[in-house]
């Protein structure tokens, strides 16, 4: 099936894939060829694209949507998509520590905009570290 991942910075992935796992807001969604048309909102998390004859491709996805147009056309529309080679592990570790500290101090007003923004930073950093760890 044909997978396309687009961000405002350009097309990040376009090509044939065996399967795709996308981080939807209600849990990970696995897509295989012949999947029923689907439109799902995504959370900040890791997507895995399996390309025939290659190591699975782990990518950081930050929100957006996965759209299964027909059984063999899938696109992910997202604000951000990064592979492991685009991530600086040391910098992300520091960011994660900072973000976690900040988040810890505001447990009271859960679901406020600031809390959500801080939670988002933690999620993004955690996902980045997971994707870096997938480095073959």
């Amino acid at each position, binding site marked *: 099936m044909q997978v396309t991942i687009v961000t405002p910075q350009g097309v990040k992935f376009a090509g044939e894939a065996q399967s795709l796992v996308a981080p939807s807001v209600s849990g990970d969604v696995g897509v295989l060829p012949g999947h029923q048309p689907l*439109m*799902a909102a995504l959370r900040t998390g890791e997507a895995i694209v399996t390309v025939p004859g290659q190591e699975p491709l782990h990518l950081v996805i930050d929100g957006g*949507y996965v759209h299964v147009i027909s059984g063999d056309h899938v696109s992910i529309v997202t604000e951000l998509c990064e592979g492991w080679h685009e991530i600086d592990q040391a910098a992300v570790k520091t960011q994660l520590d900072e973000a976690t500290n900040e988040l810890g101090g505001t447990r009271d007003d859960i679901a406020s905009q600031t809390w959500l923004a801080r939670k988002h930073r933690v999620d993004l950093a955690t996902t980045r570290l997971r994707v870096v760890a997938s480095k073959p």
Partner: protein
Amino acid sequence: MPSLKAIRRRITSVKSTGKITRAMKLVATAKLRRAQERLLQMRPYAMRLSEMISELAAGTDPESSPLLATRPPKRTLMLVLTSDRGLAGAYNANVNRAAWSWVQRHKDKRDHIEMRIVGKKGRDYFKSRAVTTGHVYTDVLHNLTQDRATGIGRELVAAYVDGHFDEVFIAYNEFKSAIAQKVQVQRLLPIQPDPWSEEAPAHERPVRPTVDTIFEPSKQDVLQAILPLSIHVHVYRALLESVASEMGARMTAMDAATKNAGELLARITLQYNRARQAIITTELMEITSGSEALKG
């Protein structure tokens, strides 16, 4: 006939103006290339998003989201995208004039029209016009980020959802090529699905599904989140188009200015040489006539 000294001063001045315009042209060319790249990278994203929206909106009651529902247009908001700096030919004048003529044509049928402006050139133009101006955003195009565009988009959506306005329009220069820009006045809100359909050739568009699509978490939730996003993207894209157009217009204008400076320089140099020759001739005549007189 101006004195030699005056002409010389003029030559120096024209020369340095030519240097400045040439430098500005080079800078605009480099910036244009970068802006064009960003615009190109943005296109697939905007296209996919509008595809999703047209699919979503196809089977949806427009009343289900305030961003789709049409209200009788009484109060209108118009966002005009101009640049902060001039020397870009008719770039700012075109978009300002188009927005102003739109206002002139529609103000009788509206109770209230408010302009929000990006760029100092638009601010200066509308300052003296009989129209309400709201927020003016400056220093946007110079260093355009997606966050800035999203911020502007969010304010527009909020003003619309809160009921301050019944419709939102956007006026900007669409980038056609380095030498051609086309002014667009488009309706941003309420959303008309598929505003950019003309971009995708029919054979490249994926086939519409025949089976029902599954929505997660629900169709309503997906719609509620994707509609504001599409506005933010529309604004961002219009801003990118404006940046590219501005650079294109400046490049063309500065190229013409450099050419004119060259022509002018040739003309004044000729004038200078003629004046110099005339003085030499006069002096020679004085000398010869003086010596002729002594001989006699």
